[in-house]
């Protein structure tokens, strides 16, 4: 049922939307400011010159490219490992009967109730002892347990009629064959949402990568932008240019995948 909305409701919608969009808009506009334009009273919204000097500054920054590369690599690694582990575990939890199954499942799910930010110190020592400071393995280590995804994926696998698996077995399909040929294609929609969610979570994580990286060339982008070093000279332009550069692909991805994200979230809301 599609109807036109009430004018007052429309107005409120516009107000809400402007407030939410404002930080995005301001970041994009401020990325064109020169250093002196940040110190004007009252603060201005539109830049004087629309040139790309801040973007050029970012591009020629010594570390900025490696920040981006590090974030993309750790994001892809974390997202794909999480997905593989989630598929394997959910497969075992939904199709096998084995002693201690419910206990193991509870063991994994209970981790969701232990706030990870309070484990920073303990995990830092573990990573240090393993000699993984300043490595990709160290950066992604604490993100690899896909507990909430296992809950959703197990539920999803259980909803697939068991006769499909039985007939696949009759045809001689082993576990991996069944997973790759049937389970993965059938759950493509939910898995792609998981990949996006895991990638975004890793890409945007802050505290943990900050702790386990010391070398500037190992930092990820979300830490990098707070350490670009322009702020000391009160020139925030390049910082906003960096923010805008990393924001654009995410905004596009979210707009494109909006429907999928919504349906995945409405199916099971265990994104904790």
């Amino acid at each position, binding site marked *: 049922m599609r109807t036109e909305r009430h004018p007052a409701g*429309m107005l409120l919608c516009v107000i809400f939307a402007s407030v939410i969009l404002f930080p995005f808009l301001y970041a994009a506009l401020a990325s064109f400011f020169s250093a002196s334009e940040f110190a004007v009273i009252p603060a201005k919204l539109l830049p004087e010159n629309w040139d790309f000097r801040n973007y050029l500054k970012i591009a020629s920054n010594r570390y900025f490219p490696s920040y981006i590369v590090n974030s993309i690599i750790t994001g892809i690694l974390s997202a794909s490992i999480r997905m593989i582990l989630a598929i394997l575990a959910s497969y075992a939890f939904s199709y096998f009967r084995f002693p201690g199954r419910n206990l193991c499942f509870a063991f994994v799910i209970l981790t969701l109730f232990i706030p990870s930010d309070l484990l920073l*110190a303990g995990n830092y020592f573990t990573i240090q002892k393993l000699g993984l400071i300043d490595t990709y393995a160290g950066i992604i280590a604490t993100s690899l347990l896909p507990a909430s995804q296992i809950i959703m994926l197990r539920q999803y696998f259980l909803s697939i009629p068991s006769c499909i698996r039985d007939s696949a077995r009759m045809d001689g399909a082993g576990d991996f064959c069944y997973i790759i040929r049937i389970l993965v294609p059938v759950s493509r929609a939910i898995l792609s949402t998981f990949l996006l969610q895991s990638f975004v979570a890793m890409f945007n994580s802050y505290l943990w990568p900050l702790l386990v990286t010391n070398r500037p060339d190992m930092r990820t982008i979300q830490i990098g932008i707070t350490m670009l070093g322009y702020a000391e000279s009160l020139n925030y332009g390049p910082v906003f240019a960096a923010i805008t550069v990393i924001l654009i692909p995410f905004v596009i991805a979210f707009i494109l995948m909006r429907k999928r994200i919504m349906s995945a979230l409405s199916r099971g809301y265990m994104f904790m």
Partner: protein
Amino acid sequence: MKRQTLRAYAFILPVMLLAIVFVYMPFIQSVVSSFFTVRMDSSLAGFAGMENYRKLFENEIFHQSLSNTFFFMVLFVPLNIILIMAAVLLTERKSRSGSIFETVFMLPMAVGMSSAALIFKYMFRPSVGIINSILNVDIPWTDNAFAAMFSVVMLGVFLDFGLDYILLLSAMRNLDRSVLEAAQIDGAGKFRLFASMKLPLISPTLFFVLFISIKDALLICAPVMVMTEGGPFRSTQTIVYYYYIEAFKNSNYSAAFAISTVVFVIATVITVISFRIDRRVHYEN
């Protein structure tokens, strides 16, 4: 049959190991260590009993951090719920312009925490900040304790907006239309329909959003770190940020582990209470 069982264990082995190494081990370590004097390299120097806790509870900064956190919670949770509920009610019915607003309302999900915190930090600068110039005021956002806390609350609402909005919107849209239409035929007005039908029906999801809001408020740390660094004069320093400072700035692990154990206890109490209430919410439906 035996082989099946072995295979199942092999499939869940990686996640079990990760749960042990990166969740249960550090959890037990921090709780146990909180009763010991801890050296700089995290090894235990000697049993301290309740000594770490006694010091902590006598510590002025601990009290301040804890009360800052609850102050944040009191501002953040209601504001978050009210604004999200309003956005959901505004876009609940599908319409031509609706999908544009839907997209905008979920967009904060796309922003990284530290990007958002930096943007807010510069927007909320006193005198030269864009917020002051648009509102035509001169609020000392970084010098006044309440103003600084309020700016952090705004950041918190912005960061959580997208996810909470989608959760509540999809709950609202998945309601059984026939029940609502029956109520409408019986003469229920718009407000009545919302208060007596929709609100109780979505209460499990609303309750879930409330629960995550409270949990997020209790555990907020990184946004504060980037935006205000706890200032001015520790007025926005939250309890988890205090834990971070004790652990990684002061290398005072005895204190850090005691703080984290206190927060674990608070988090567990909140979780248990909310599960109790949650059961009641579900039963009523």
